[in-house]
């Protein structure tokens, strides 16, 4: 049986996901806050024919604590707005998908929706959005608009964080708001039909206003009238991605309702099988949902040695994702093994760039290709195309077709 090729993405953040990554001699640490640093990484990912890169973001300073910012000076602190960074990378690349993180908790859904639509325009159809909620009290204090109580984290016997009752309610509420924000974005992206711009000189009309639609969204937290100010993006709807650890009171409900791609964090093949079953059992409206697994990776012949050196400089991160250290061939074995559980692709978090990224693009990707599990060239121009997702149907256009 021919299997669908794996999807492969990388998650970019600072110098990598290990707290000591920036001290790797291969990193030019002084360049982290330049466009050049990011351009080099994304070009490398594109040379590896990866589906997309994600860019981490948050509306607060990085911290390794759960209850507030830390005072550490020995780790990377500071970040760019991910949507703008992705936009700057768009003209420097031609095929790779660009998926910035944007929170729904403190932002205006209208602004985020037109920002992602504009990223799709400037990248000619390569935009995605990693939807994120923020339950952090100190990030709420940067906005002064809503009270978010400081969450006191507890651990279960397996060492996983478990939220208490108050936290459960809050998180369920934030996920509900995120689902509303995605719904608003999708309606705004559809609010211009593809052929709304007519430039009809005879009647003097630039647009056919019958093809522009008020979205009239009214939710419990906000309402948005529409239409978008930004014409429908090239992909119709950019690719919506949600990372879900399954640890929330509403596991996998947001991605099932709202996403095109869900990022999950299995720790074994059996765990992966269980997660895929859970994702697939959630109520949804029938549109395709790709399940990709997140892994934090040290890759290469000297992966264990490099990991040990980084671990000596700083304790390894308390990762929600499974941490792998080994050769590209060993990683390929693991990725193909978990595929048996229904995982359709992976978002790899390089422990340290550029070393682990280069090992992904120059060793892992060719290894998977040799095994018939990865593309040998880009066959599509858009991110939806890479992921095998269809062009998004415009709800307003189809409504009209139903009436006619």
């Amino acid at each position: 049986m021919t299997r669908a090729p794996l999807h492969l993405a990388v998650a970019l953040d600072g110098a990598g996901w290990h707290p000591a990554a920036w001290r790797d001699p291969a990193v030019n640490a002084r360049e982290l806050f330049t466009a050049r640093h990011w351009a080099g990484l994304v070009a490398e990912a594109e040379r590896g024919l990866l589906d997309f890169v994600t860019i981490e973001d948050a509306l607060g300073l990085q911290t390794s604590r759960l209850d507030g910012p830390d005072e550490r000076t020995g780790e990377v602190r500071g970040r760019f707005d991910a949507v703008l960074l992705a936009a700057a990378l768009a003209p420097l690349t031609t095929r790779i998908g660009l998926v910035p993180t944007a929170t729904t908790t403190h932002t205006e859904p209208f602004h985020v929706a037109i920002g992602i639509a504009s990223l799709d325009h400037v990248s000619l159809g390569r935009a995605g959005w990693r939807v994120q909620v923020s339950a952090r009290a100190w990030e709420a204090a940067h906005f002064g608009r809503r009270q978010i109580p400081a969450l006191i984290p507890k651990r279960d016997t397996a060492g996983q964080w478990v939220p208490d009752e108050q936290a459960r309610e809050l998180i369920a509420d934030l996920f509900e708001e995120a689902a509303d924000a995605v719904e608003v974005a999708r309606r705004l992206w559809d609010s211009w039909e593809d052929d709304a711009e007519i430039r009809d000189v005879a009647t003097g009309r630039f647009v056919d206003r019958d093809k522009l639609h008020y979205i009239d969204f009214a939710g419990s937290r906000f309402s948005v009238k529409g239409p978008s100010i930004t014409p429908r993006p090239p992909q119709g709807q950019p690719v919506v991605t949600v990372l879900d650890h399954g640890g929330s009171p509403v596991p996998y409900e947001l991605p099932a309702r709202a996403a095109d791609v869900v990022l999950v964090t299995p720790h074994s093949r059996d765990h992966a099988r269980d997660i895929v079953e859970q994702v697939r059992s959630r109520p949804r409206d029938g549109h395709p949902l790709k399940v990709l697994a997140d892994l934090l990776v040290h890759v290469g012949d000297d992966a264990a040695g490099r990991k040990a050196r980084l671990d000596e400089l700083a304790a390894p991160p308390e990762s929600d994702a499974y941490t792998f250290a080994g050769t590209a061939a060993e990683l390929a074995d693991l990725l193909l093994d978990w595929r048996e559980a229904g995982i359709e692709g992976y978002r790899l978090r390089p422990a340290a760039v550029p070393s682990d990224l280069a090992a992904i693009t120059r060793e892992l990707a060719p290894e998977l290709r040799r095994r018939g599990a990865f593309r040998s060239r880009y066959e599509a121009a858009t991110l939806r195309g890479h992921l095998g997702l269809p062009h998004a149907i415009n709800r307003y256009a189809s409504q009209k077709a139903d009436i006619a």
Partner: protein
Amino acid sequence: MKQVHLAAHFPGVNNTTVWADPRSRSQIDFTSFADLARTAERGKFDFFFLAEGLRLRELKGRIHDLDVVGRPESLTVLAALASVTERLGLAATVNATFNEPYELARRLATLDHLSAGRAAWNVVTTSDAFTGENFRRGGYLDRSERYTRAEEFVRLSRELWDSWRPDAVLADQESGRFLRSGAVSAVSHRGRHFTVEGRFNVPRGPQGHPVIIQAGDSDEGREFAAANADVIFSRHGTLEEGRAFYADVKRRLAAHGRQPHQLKIMPAATFALGDTDAEAAERAAEIRRQQVGPQTAIAFLEQIWGRDMSAYDPEGPLPDVEPAVEQGVSQGRVQVSDRVAVAARWRAVAEEKELSIRELVIHMTGRQSFVGSPATVAAQIEEFVRTDAADGFILVPHLTPGGLDDFVDRVVPLLQERGVFRTDYAGATLRDHLGLGGAA
């Protein structure tokens, strides 16, 4: 010799854009933005300017369909342009009413990093409940609060930008010190409009503070600019009006402890060129007729009169009909505050000059425009700047994206010959181009 500053406006959503011209291309494709920006950079312009609108305009309860409709989000496009230009300043119009300081300040700081010091923010405000229908907070802001919120917004943004020392990032791989100790200060702001506590998460940008641009002609607008802005975007048509405005605004600076060179006055201006002045005048008239087509003329009349005027012939005389008193026929544009008085003024002009509806609209909606041969236009621009009616201009071409080509190819070299415009960029940042000095 006093130098001329020039900026390019990407012609967006209004009737200045002649979309029906066969040379007109997409208003949304990135190539259009990139082409116009590259032309501006070839012409050594100070910056590239994008306007904003957060709701599609309506007339008589329906979306206005005669002008260009639709545009991308400004900062996203400028971030992409940062990668295809090297020196050109990148100015985004962003509303201070429907944004929050922590988020917007970090987006602007990000653009400043991505462009290596070329970011600018044109601060605008609105109290418009119509626009508010697209946002969480709705149209909550009272008109009188617009400037107090904007002022607090700008002040708080500067506090956030200043909260990282310029040398905060040490990135010393040997010692393991990424940040200097104490290099990131906590911000604690409790004001009338904002309560912000915490730490900013973008290092200080190359310019320290992105350039602040502000438009506005009211007394409070001028005062806001004198206190806060690096560039003021005005619209004074004649030399005399320009000089009066210039003198007034520059005089206000001292009270804020600022020098005259720290605020540049740059009115918006259109232009029409020809080989001779007569040919340019003909071209200017033709452009205005394209900008104000028959349907557009009626639409303008409806905005002033506040009622349906679609039954009248745009090429015929102004009908003998009184304006409606109630407001609200037009949404998303500047509201006409006293219909009866404005309509009376329009009628008087129409009668005196014997103008048709369309001719009247063309006459009444014209703005500062340089019309003539390249030599004439260069001389006019130099005169405005030399005699302190302006420090430069934000040019609004009528075509996308090729509308600046003639100006850059034919007028810029003449300004350079006159010694009043740079032949190359001297500095790297927009603050350098504008001669503003570093951020305070």
